[in-house]
């Protein structure tokens, strides 16, 4: 296995204490290699979002081990000190809704991340432009989010998730609001990006259209993961958003 990617071993998460405690995650084991896109599916309330929040370093697990890239981020109560920097440098987020910053244009929405990490504005914008070009929205680079179509917004948001070239991307239902062609385009982009930047990508989804595209899928039921082989169906390269 590659040194990069994601490894999760025996992860559990309990919300609350005592009688009202909710065991959202009980025994989660998964690994995603660099360059791989893996699906995470499961019924509502099964713990998908909880798992992403643990991986995304916004909530603390109760027990287990998490490794992002070459760094152990959590080990049975021990965790990395600067979670904010971890999120900024190691993890890219893509949401169901694009959640772009409404007062920044497409370029600066993407460039904001490298800027936050201390990169000079011009270099950050150049990098943003490179990503926007890769995602084929460079012609809308100066547009404000409100002026973009839903698919364009989603692509800008994916560009934002990728711009710091994080070893890990967490995507929470990235295709939910999109029609079939656009959903397939987003999956294609994620696959291309995973290969191009050697990124490990987890895609949480309910979307029947895209499930057949994963080579590997983790099913999560009542807080326990089960690995399955996916169909790994080829993605139609003609699809675009």
């Amino acid at each position: 296995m590659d040194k990069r990617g994601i490894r999760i071993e025996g992860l559990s998460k309990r919300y609350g204490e005592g009688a009202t405690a909710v065991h959202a995650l009980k025994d989660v084991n998964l690994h995603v290699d660099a360059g791989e896109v893996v699906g995470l599916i499961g019924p509502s309330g099964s713990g998908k979002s909880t798992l992403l929040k643990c991986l995304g370093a916004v909530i603390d697990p109760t027990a287990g081990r998490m490794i992002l890239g070459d760094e152990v981020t959590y080990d049975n109560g021990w965790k990395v000190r600067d979670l904010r920097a971890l999120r900024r440098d190691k993890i890219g987020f893509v949401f169901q809704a694009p959640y772009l910053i409404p007062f920044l244009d497409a370029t600066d929405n993407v460039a904001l991340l490298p800027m936050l990490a201390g990169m000079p504005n011009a270099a950050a914008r150049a990098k943003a432009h490179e990503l926007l070009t890769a995602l084929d929205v460079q012609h809308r680079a100066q547009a404000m989010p409100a002026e973009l179509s839903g698919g364009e917004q989603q692509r800008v948001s994916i560009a934002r998730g990728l711009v710091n070239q994080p070893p890990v991307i967490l995507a929470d239902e990235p295709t939910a609001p999109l029609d079939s062609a656009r959903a397939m385009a987003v999956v294609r982009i994620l696959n291309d990006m995973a290969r191009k930047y050697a990124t490990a990508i987890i895609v949480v989804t309910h979307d029947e259209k895209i499930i057949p595209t994963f080579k590997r899928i983790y099913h999560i039921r009542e807080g326990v993961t089960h690995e399955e082989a996916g169909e790994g169906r080829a993605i139609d390269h003609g699809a675009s958003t």
Partner: protein
Amino acid sequence: MISLAGRDILHAWGKFLFTGIGLGLLIGVTLTMAGVYRGMVDDGKALLDNSGADLWIVQKNTLGPYAEASSVHDDLYRSIRITPGVAMAANVTYLTMQVRKGDSDVRAMVVGITPGQVGTPGWPPYLVSGRPISRSHYEAVADIASGFRIGDLIRIRRHEYNVVGLTRRMVSSSGDPMIFIPLKDAQQAQFLKDNEAILQGRRRTAGNPAFNRPAVPGLLDSVIASQSGNPYVNAVLVTVRPGFAAEDVAASIRRWQRVTAYTRTQMEGILVGKLIATSARQIGMFLVILAVVSAAIVAFIIYSLTMDKIREIAVLKLIGTRNRTIAAMIMQQALVLGVIGFVVGKITATFAAPIFPKYVLLIPLDSIAGFLAVLAICMLASVVAIRMALKVDPAEAIG
């Protein structure tokens, strides 16, 4: 790094501008209120400056002649004039009243001055047009703010006075324009009764056997004459010879004359510290209320602007924005609102000041203090919004 606050403001500039203008009008009122207070103090100082006096001699143990009633005998000035260090001493009377101007009346402070001697304390230091009073009866010099013009007739009690000269910024401590008339007329005006009352008074005196003695001819006439005259004035204004300290001269007048003497500094203390102290406190209360209201408005607006951005703030935090950066964004927005408000307020106050009936004096120091207060209030007001923004959980950005 780009300025998040700046981008947000540019994006929602209309919201900021309109809120800033609203806040600005409030700040304008606040600055004007401060100007009203400064105007009152300045009116008081103008009153003292324009009187041309170094010392005010008033009835013993009174705060006269402006803050309290005071009366001293009108021959007192003779003995004061020969006190060492005194250059000039002149009687003066002050009477605030409604004077008739055609069909209407104006509130004015009627000042009785010794006629014919320009440069005497109590005289207006300069005229904007016309000439000084030269006759000892029925001539007047009016402040231009009273609305009188040269040649107008002013009716004060039963007599009419011919306006011969005009002054500017000669006002009482409450901002009423001054009208100067000859001392004798003014003394009479203070106690002038109508003819019926005079006749009544004479009849009463004549009916008193103590005054109307058949064996003493002329006694009744003398008593009546002394009753109808008014040998009192409100104060004696004194100028001090060069080389003498005003306080020393005042001390020797106090010692010898059974009167109270105030220097310029003391008089200013009385006017500012006592006469307008209540008004100043009143205005102070207004300033406090306006400051609280402004703070509440800024706090509310910044709070709701931040509320609108909760989702974005969660995303910003999730992607690794420092709390400091988010707090700075909110505070900068509050400060920008404050700056817009202050600029609008300053412009409003500057244009509104001349419209006010009384003198409104805007001094740069108040503007600077106001500006700093606005910034402080805005910073304080943004604290609520900042606290809320810092509490936003980055996990909220994930489903």
